[in-house]
């Protein structure tokens, strides 16, 4: 049986890849996908700990994370579409009207 720490290491690597994606990509939709990647890396941690502790609670939390991710994706993509109507770009550097 594969030890829990291996799953945690895999999840850490996936989280770091997602974090780098948020930093280096300028296409706002790809940034969004990198955020989904980070959420999923954390879900893997929850499920691995649920097995380690022999409880079901971690899996229930994953259910809630999925719900929040679905809501976040719907609202975020709606914001992207609304912003695209005002200014036809998905480059995060050019969508800086809220920056002081």
């Amino acid at each position, binding site marked *: *049986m*594969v*030890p*829990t*720490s291996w*799953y*945690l*290491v*895999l999840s*850490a*690597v*996936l*989280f*770091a*890849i*997602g974090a*780098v*994606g948020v*930093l*280096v*990509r*300028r*296409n706002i*939709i*790809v940034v*969004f*996908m*990198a955020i*989904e990647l980070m959420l*999923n890396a954390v*879900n*893997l941690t929850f*499920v691995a700990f649920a*097995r*380690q*502790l*022999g409880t*079901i*609670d971690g*899996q*229930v939390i*994953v*259910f*809630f994370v999925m*719900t*929040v*991710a*679905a*809501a*976040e*994706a*719907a*609202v975020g*993509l*709606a914001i*992207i*579409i*609304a912003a695209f109507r005002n200014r036809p770009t*998905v*480059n995060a550097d050019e969508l800086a009207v809220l920056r002081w």
Partner: protein
Amino acid sequence: MGPVTFFLLATALVVSALTVVVHPNPVKSAMALVATLFLLAVEFVFLGAHMIAALQVIVYAGAIMVLFLFVIMLLNLSDEEAEARRRGRALFRIGAWIGGGVLAAELAALFLRVPFPAPAAPPAGYGGAESVATALFVDYALPFELTSILLLIAVIGTVVLAQRRAS
């Protein structure tokens, strides 16, 4: 799951996750993300979370990624990263990759230091629909009901944001 299966799966996961982040074409990034989510569902099955694995495929790979692809194709995006890449961000990119590598290495060193005991054999039906549903509707009944309010707010917010203003 044996170590060989784990390393094969982990390699495929890391490669597809890197593809999401580095591929210049957003549609191919999205397809790589679908592959990543499927592979994570396989990991969930090996961890005994069968219900969560099914939800992962249906909700994430099925619903959320279709939404992403719809928006990408609605906005008709092409590879416009190359131009943005040239504008003197090379140093920042290298720094971000180094920072991500340090983050992963530190977390890995931390996790590998903790001596986890081998997990006990899970009870019968662990991770199936019944055990997850029992926890969800008994111990987590209030958060579950609050979830419906969250989804309602998301639906209303999305419709308000995405509708075309009549002006």
